[in-house]
């Protein structure tokens, strides 16, 4: 297997593979990628953007004649998932931005995915059509109805091959269940249900039923003036269909068991790290807010991302994480500026590799970071057009904190905070990663010998 850092404990060398998106200097806001997700086999890679569109890439079959191409991803389907809406009751616009995409495991020839904006979840079916029927009796080739009295013979329509067409159709629309903004969706391991989480509530849905959902978590206080904490992310356990976790803006994670009660307001486990008094400031709570939570593929660990760190927690230990990785600690002295320009509220995601041995998350200046949990080594790489020669090896980047800056280093003050890597994805079994940099999608692969 090609997962992790290899059997020889050598560092993986990451190479540029592809980049999708325009090079234009003026980026239209609608093109900004807001979510990236591989499907369960890694054959498909989906992106959602602020304009409500979904683009699905498919990996081409590996060819013996072009072994170095290693299966490139090409556009497979593009469709408009969500449109902007207007909530007349509140006099507010509802953005069409796709917050999350989650794939369902493939059960037949068609692919299914869930996509969501702030208010509505949709189930999309993506299927191929490469044949079409010809020889209808009641209509002619142009589709016009024929006069029945003119028909003298009957024939059986036949299926004839046609150019491959990939069509996406909305099969279910799950609407009107969220007062607040949806931040997460998660497919359950039973493949029959899924959950959607907003700032204050989590709902459980059955895929077949769109006019009902069960509310399983509700943290809305009776008096909104008492609101001090919101839900920031939620996910089902990969194997136990009764278990899920959700994170909060106060840096806590709650694990809930749906078997204990219909309303899971009481957690089964509560994960929180005690605060470090030496690091206390007015920004402590803000930077402790968890922006993403992900179960490991094994289901034994959860990973959380807060503003400055990534933490790995063992489900059996609630009082502190087992591992903490510094993503960009040099920002700790800049928190006030980052508060002023709102960057401190940026929500970074985090991902596991297929074997749970390496974790990855994004940073600023189009940097992203990987941490090897076994060797404890980490690397900072950059998604930029300068490193976009085919199969060019990515050079590790380094941020200089103070004192003398070496030639290849970049100083903290030169970082571009408008270039943030919030969304990344890792192929389920191979060393292929997708990194969203504003309106560009970068695909990197490990070096083939």
């Amino acid at each position, binding site marked *: 297997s090609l997962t992790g850092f290899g059997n020889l404990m050598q560092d993986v060398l990451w190479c540029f593979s592809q980049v999708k998106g325009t090079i234009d200097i003026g980026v239209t806001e609608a093109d900004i990628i807001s979510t990236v997700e591989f499907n369960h086999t890694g054959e498909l890679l989906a992106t959602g953007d602020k304009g409500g569109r979904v683009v699905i890439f498919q990996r081409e079959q590996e060819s013996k004649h072009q072994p170095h191409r290693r299966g490139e991803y090409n556009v497979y389907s593009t469709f408009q998932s969500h449109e902007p809406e207007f909530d007349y009751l509140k006099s507010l616009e509802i*953005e069409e931005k796709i917050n999350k995409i989650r794939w369902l495991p493939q059960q037949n020839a068609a692919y299914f995915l869930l996509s969501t904006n702030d208010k509505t979840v949709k189930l999309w079916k993506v299927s191929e059509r490469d044949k079409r029927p010809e020889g209808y009796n009641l209509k002619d080739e142009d589709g016009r109805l024929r006069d029945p009295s003119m028909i003298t013979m009957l024939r059986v329509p036949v299926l004839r091959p046609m150019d491959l067409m990939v069509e996406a159709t909305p099969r279910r629309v799950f609407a009107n269940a969220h007062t607040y903004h949806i931040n997460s969706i998660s497919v359950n391991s039973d493949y029959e249900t899924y959950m959607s989480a907003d700032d204050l509530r989590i709902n459980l849905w059955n895929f077949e039923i769109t006019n009902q959902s069960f509310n399983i978590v509700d943290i809305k206080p009776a008096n909104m003036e008492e*609101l*001090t904490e919101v839900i920031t992310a939620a996910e089902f356990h990969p194997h136990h269909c009764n278990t899920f976790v959700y994170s909060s803006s106060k840096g806590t994670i709650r694990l809930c068991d749906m078997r204990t009660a219909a309303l899971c307001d009481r957690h089964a486990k509560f994960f929180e790290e005690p605060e470090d008094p030496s690091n206390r400031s*007015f920004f402590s709570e803000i930077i402790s807010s968890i922006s993403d939570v992900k179960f490991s593929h094994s289901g034994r660990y959860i990973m959380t991302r807060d503003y400055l760190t990534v933490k790995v927690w063992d489900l059996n230990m609630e009082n502190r994480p087992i591992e903490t990785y510094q993503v960009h600690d040099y920002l700790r002295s800049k928190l006030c500026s980052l508060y002023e320009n709102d960057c401190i509220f940026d929500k970074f995601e985090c991902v596991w590799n297929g074997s749970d041995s390496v974790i990855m998350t994004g940073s600023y200046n189009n940097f992203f970071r990987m941490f090897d949990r076994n060797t404890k080594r980490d690397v900072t790489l950059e998604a930029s057009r300068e490193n976009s020669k085919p199969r060019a090896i990515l050079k590790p980047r380094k941020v200089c904190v103070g004192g003398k800056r070496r030639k290849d280093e970049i100083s903290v003050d030169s970082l571009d*905070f*408008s270039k943030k890597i919030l969304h990344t994805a890792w192929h389920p079994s191979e060393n292929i990663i997708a990194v969203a940099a504003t309106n560009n999608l970068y695909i990197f692969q490990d070096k083939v010998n």
Partner: protein
Amino acid sequence: MFVRGLKRKCFDGEEDIEGTLAGIKAIPSYNLQRQSLLDMSLVKLQLCHMLVEPNLCRSVLIANTVRQIQEEMTQDGTWQMINTQSTGQASLDRLVSTDILCRSSREQAEGKHVSGYSTFNKDFDGSQAQDSSETMSTASSLQAPRHLQNNAWEMENPQENKGNFQKSLDQIFETLENKSPNSVEDLFSEVDNSYYDFDTMLTGMMSNTKMGHCDGLETFSSPTTTASNSNCKSDLNELDHIVEILVES
């Protein structure tokens, strides 16, 4: 030398309250920081009502920060202190650049912040001697205090102010809860309109005076990382626009 003279002038009014000179150096800087953070947070909370629908997580985090500051200020009694200062001085105290706000406490202990504070000297008439590069910041500083004095947002009564803060927070969450077509107007019906116009200015003020400070500070202090904000390129256009407005007015 120039710096020291100004420093004593600035802190004159506070000597009897603070006591030792060391006390004057250390305490106001933290209070200054804290007050500016409070002001910035309130502006953020108000501004977020201008958006499509406020991001609840962000609003909650900012509101919690405001509460934290309030609690701390109530505990150490500085809430009362604001009331004893003259209106004009209080306004100036609060118009602190982001640069000072974000300076590390170590640098402040060394007194470097004071040179920055000195450009907010009450005696604006005497500011002609300063660098011409500071003219823009001082000119715009002049605008704001006058505006503030006419402004109902002025903090006169600590109890009332406390109530106002709480009311603002409550209003914000109630508004989020009961969003109706008139709710945005309702929220602002109890807030003086001149404040609402001012908040954009205040945000601009902070960035603007920070730029002015950078120029001034180069003369007095050793290089510090003052340019951290300049990397947010999206702010610069807004900044230019606000500067235009201020300079023209």
